[in-house]
């Protein structure tokens, strides 16, 4: 009924803790990762209402350093990375020469001429190969896959800041901004014991929160310390199942669903991520400048009534005409009705358009709606 972890799948440095906490596991991008620790709905609501802690150590991590690092990233990626501030993070895309998406990723500018590029686990090898190939023309540049040295813990939810501020042994480095002064998509640097921690205000849930990058040797101690501080505040370990419903509510794309080699950024609503105004060439520029092919499908949000959700792969109809396909769908735990993202014909993207979804033989009415489905109230 679900993917059985393959024997050769990798394990996070936190694996034994997950086993002890009663997690069920799935194979995700070649890693054996927790799906949930008992109830994915409880974990989902904990993140919306208090905080959840996710092990995302499966994510790939590519270090890009050297005097040419910024120029390299501007060439290798769709966005303009050379203008990111020190300790700033930026979401970007790795395109192929046809403008298709090899991966979506976050670039962290951690020090002068030092960047960490965090990629999807399943695309780690493809991304590293593309980076290595694109590095050929740059002299003062080192590109390394450091994924196996780094553990990543995500603390997400309205109480995430309080959790971090009260965690024993976690302290901010001298001269670095306090946690509460770190803006969205910026970072600070800290210590946990003798180990350094990069603390970024980023995430994949639609809530406020932080992602902590630590040496894998420090991961177990940090996870435990965060839980000790966080449990009185409602912090709950959370797995991939809730991570998926959280990101879907937040309208965030998932590679392999809303993004892929056969999808251009503009189709997925990510045209703004491509910096056509930056000087110089970048991989995919020509194809993107040529524009989308006529009739290229684009991503929309769909909402339906009742409780039967449209799922990835289900067809979308306008009357009797097949006009698209669902890329992700679930019953929204927060909203209480089904939500889905779908790629549909470009004429049908207007908010309020009435379509139907084929849910295993039954046509269910669906309405095109604005993304995201859920947006947190900001302070």
């Amino acid at each position: 009924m679900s993917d059985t972890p393959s024997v050769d799948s990798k394990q996070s440095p936190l694996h034994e803790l997950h086993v002890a906490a009663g997690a069920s596991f799935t194979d995700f991008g070649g890693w054996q990762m927790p799906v949930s620790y008992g109830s994915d709905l409880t974990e989902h609501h904990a993140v919306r209402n208090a905080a959840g802690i996710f092990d995302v150590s499966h994510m790939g991590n590519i270090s890009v350093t050297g005097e040419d690092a910024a120029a390299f990233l501007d060439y290798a990626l769709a966005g303009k990375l050379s203008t990111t501030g020190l300790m700033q993070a930026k979401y970007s895309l790795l395109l192929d020469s046809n403008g298709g998406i090899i991966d979506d990723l976050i670039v962290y500018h951690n020090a002068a001429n030092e960047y960490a590029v965090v990629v999807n686990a399943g695309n780690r090898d493809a991304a590293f190969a593309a980076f290595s190939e694109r590095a050929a023309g740059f002299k003062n540049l080192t590109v390394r896959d450091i994924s196996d040295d780094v553990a990543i813990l995500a603390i997400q939810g309205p109480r995430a800041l309080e959790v971090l501020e009260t965690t024993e042994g976690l302290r901010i480095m001298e001269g670095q901004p306090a946690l509460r002064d770190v803006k969205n998509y910026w970072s600070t640097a800290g210590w946990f014991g003798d180990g350094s921690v990069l603390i970024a205000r980023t995430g994949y849930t639609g809530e406020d929160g932080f992602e902590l990058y630590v040496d894998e040797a420090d991961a177990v101690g940090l996870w435990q310390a965060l839980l000790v501080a966080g449990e009185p505040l409602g912090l709950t370990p959370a797995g991939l199942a809730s991570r998926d419903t959280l990101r879907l509510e937040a309208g965030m794309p998932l590679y392999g669903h809303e993004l892929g080699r056969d999808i251009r950024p503009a189709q997925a609503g990510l045209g703004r991520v491509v910096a056509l105004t930056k000087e110089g060439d970048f991989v995919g520029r020509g194809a993107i400048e040529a524009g989308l092919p006529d009739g290229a499908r684009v991503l929309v949000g769909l909402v339906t009534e009742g409780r039967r959700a449209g799922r990835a792969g289900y067809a979308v109809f306008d009357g009797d005409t097949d006009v698209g396909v669902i890329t992700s769908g679930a019953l929204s735990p927060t909203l209480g009705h089904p939500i889905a993202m779908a790629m549909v014909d470009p004429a049908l993207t207007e908010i309020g358009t009435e379509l139907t979804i084929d849910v295993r033989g039954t046509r269910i009415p669906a309405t095109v709606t604005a993304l995201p489905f859920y947006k947190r109230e900001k302070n």
Partner: protein
Amino acid sequence: MANTADLKYTRDHEWIALDGETVTIGITDYAADQLGDVVYVDLPAAGSAIEGGKVVGEIESTKSVGELFAPVDGTVVESNQAVIDNPQLVNDDPFGEGWMIKVTIDPSTLSGTLTEDEYRALVAE
């Protein structure tokens, strides 16, 4: 909750409780765990004829859809309204309040089922 040692099991991760010509069918704790939190259950109405091996119902979690198979031919005498109204019962009490349907069958047609030990060995693989 039924004594799980007295139940029969199928390779589709269902349990069957025999009571004369009436059987109660549900999904196992293993199946419920694999699905995750169940949020929607669709069951055949009382009076429906069901055919062995065919899909007769759906059990949806936030992340996936599971199917309920008819283990043998029969006629539905009752579907569990409580589990339709509160799908979380499937996770909370899969062998008890989370039962799915009661069906009248010819007990001699029920073959190929597993004992609890055999079923546990199957899911431990």
